[in-house]
């Protein structure tokens, strides 16, 4: 370099050096690996994830280790405030509230998971079919979506809940039939957009059929936003289940859920607000964790927030 003003290397911004040296041994980071690397940056989401895992684990572990169970009555020890023997106190039949809360939370979690799974399957399938094939297929599915959207969910839940409420499976199916909508709409919209992408055209030019295009080219690019939506759907399911059970249309005794516990506790609101606050707190904590988790996933799955190779 003769010109003193010109550096012999173009200066680079620290952290943004990209090296493509020939023959350099670079192990490729797969897409999921990169996503995980980005997710790790999101502290709140990590905390939420850990809390959620611990919570759910405790719902199963604590009742299994305890000598108490959720249903045996013990009238002499009824209406107790928290103590060592009964950390959450007892109810009006002397049943241990901690075990009841954990057993109830187990049911809430089971419903949330079933609803998340069912609505993902329904939403992804219908959304994919509508978005990929368009035309009358889309018209039919879109009208179903609009129908579910315009009818107030709570009314359907109340009406159908009275007739079919009760078993955990029935409630799950009922809730899934309502909450798959956002997943279906997202998948449909993304299919509409992605099927015009040049890489889909390229696959067509290579001779790929609709199944290969949907499964190999479009779905993997849709799953990110869907994953985010699943966390929100699971949260919604927990809240809706509690609502239903609180109204007496959900889980029926002797089974309990967080919603029935709140319902049980409402009569002693003045004397022992903890009977509502504790199960309510679990609901809030789980939904909050799910939402934070969703936030973290949203950021992690956004490829524009790409992080430089370490």
């Amino acid at each position, binding site marked *: 370099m003769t010109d003193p003003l010109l550096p012999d290397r173009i200066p680079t911004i620290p952290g943004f050096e990209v090296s493509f040296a020939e*023959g350099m041994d670079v192990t490729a980071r797969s*897409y999921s690996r990169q996503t995980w690397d980005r997710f790790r940056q999101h502290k709140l989401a990590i905390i939420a994830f850990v809390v959620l895992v611990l919570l759910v684990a405790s719902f199963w572990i604590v009742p299994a280790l305890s000598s108490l169970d959720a249903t045996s009555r013990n009238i002499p020890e009824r209406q107790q405030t928290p103590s060592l023997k009964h950390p959450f106190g007892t109810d009006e039949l002397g049943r241990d509230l901690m075990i009841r809360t954990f057993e109830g939370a187990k049911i809430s979690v089971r419903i949330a998971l079933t609803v998340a799974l069912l609505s993902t399957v329904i939403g992804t399938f219908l959304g994919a079919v509508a978005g990929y094939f368009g035309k009358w297929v889309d018209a039919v599915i879109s009208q179903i979506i609009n129908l579910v959207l315009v009818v107030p969910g709570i009314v359907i839940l109340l009406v159908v809940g009275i007739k079919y409420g009760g078993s955990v499976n029935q409630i799950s199916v009922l809730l899934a039939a309502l909450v798959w909508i956002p997943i279906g709409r997202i998948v449909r919209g993304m299919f509409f957009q992605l099927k015009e*992408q040049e890489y889909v055209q*390229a696959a067509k*030019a*290579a*001779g790929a059929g609709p199944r290969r295009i949907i499964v190999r080219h479009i779905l*993997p690019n849709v799953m990110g936003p869907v994953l985010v939506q699943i966390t929100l759907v699971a949260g919604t399911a927990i809240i809706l289940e509690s609502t239903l059970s609180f109204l007496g249309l959900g889980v029926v005794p002797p089974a309990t859920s967080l919603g029935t516990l709140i319902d049980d506790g409402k009569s002693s609101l003045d004397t022992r607000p903890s009977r509502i606050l504790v199960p309510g707190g679990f609901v809030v904590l789980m939904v909050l964790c799910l939402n934070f988790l969703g936030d973290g996933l949203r950021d992690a799955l956004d490829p524009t927030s*790409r992080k430089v190779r370490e």
Partner: protein
Amino acid sequence: MTGLPVLSIDSLVKEFPVRAGLLRRTVAHVKAVSGVSLELHEGETLGIVGESGCGKTTLGRSILRLIEPTSGSIVYKGEEIMQASRRRMRELRQELQIVFQDPFASLNPRMPVRDIIGEPLRIHGASKSQADSRTNELLDAVGLLADYGNRYPHEFSGGQRQRIGIARALALRPTVIVLDEPVSALDVSVQAQAINLLDDLQSEFNLSYLFIAHDLSVVRHISDRISVMYLGQLVEVTDRDALYERPAHPYTHSLLSAVPVADPIKERSRRRIVLQGDIPSPADVPPGCRFHTRCPLADERCRTEIPLMQEIAPGHQVACHRPIAPGETLVELAAALS
């Protein structure tokens, strides 16, 4: 250029219906491609030039039936592919391939490069190991390291990605490749590399190219013949040199005048012909010659009568009522008229 053309297209038409209202009735048609006929010979590069929205991309995709043409005929080596069954079409896709314009959108971000290039092979029945070894060959052919196969598209630059797209198009050993503005998304320095690569590959594999571009300077280097497209129709088809030296259509003249010259003195004295107005909407094409709304030479006949493609010199076809003779310039002719 000997014998029968590899690919011959006759009166190809693609119209997109415009639907409106509650009942989705068809209210109009966007005439993207209106009766294009062309021939592509073995080992030849035919350039197709036209401004944005003239239908060149639609033409390219219609030829591969990625967009189903409305009517017309596409004959590949004597076989009418407009009538090919779905199964036969799949086989034909091995022969006819495409490279897309956008090197970022044309590679699936979720697939490693090895799978992207190997996919056409896998679809047509190659085993994983066969596909992998062919992929390594292809990476080498387009000047990338075999190690790059494990990486994902976002780890590459635009030029490298376009090489990957080219490798994918080559995978099935095609005879015809539609290059849909393969370099217009690249930097000028990278464009040259990509063009040279395409040139080398053409002679190595005896490929025929249909090279779609929007500016004449890029096509000049690679094309044997060039056709100029305006609003869904070809207006002039001729040998490369004839087009640059003896352009006959007023539209070709104006396109050529827009090519910058790499000489500041000449560039300053260059007389550009700036066309008036925008390209008309393909949903509402002008009657008569489609170019008459912007042509400085248009007269009454141009406004009413559709000009047919006619041969003004051997291998030089023009669709114009008032072709410009060698030696005349559009600027002077227009000045004389007004």
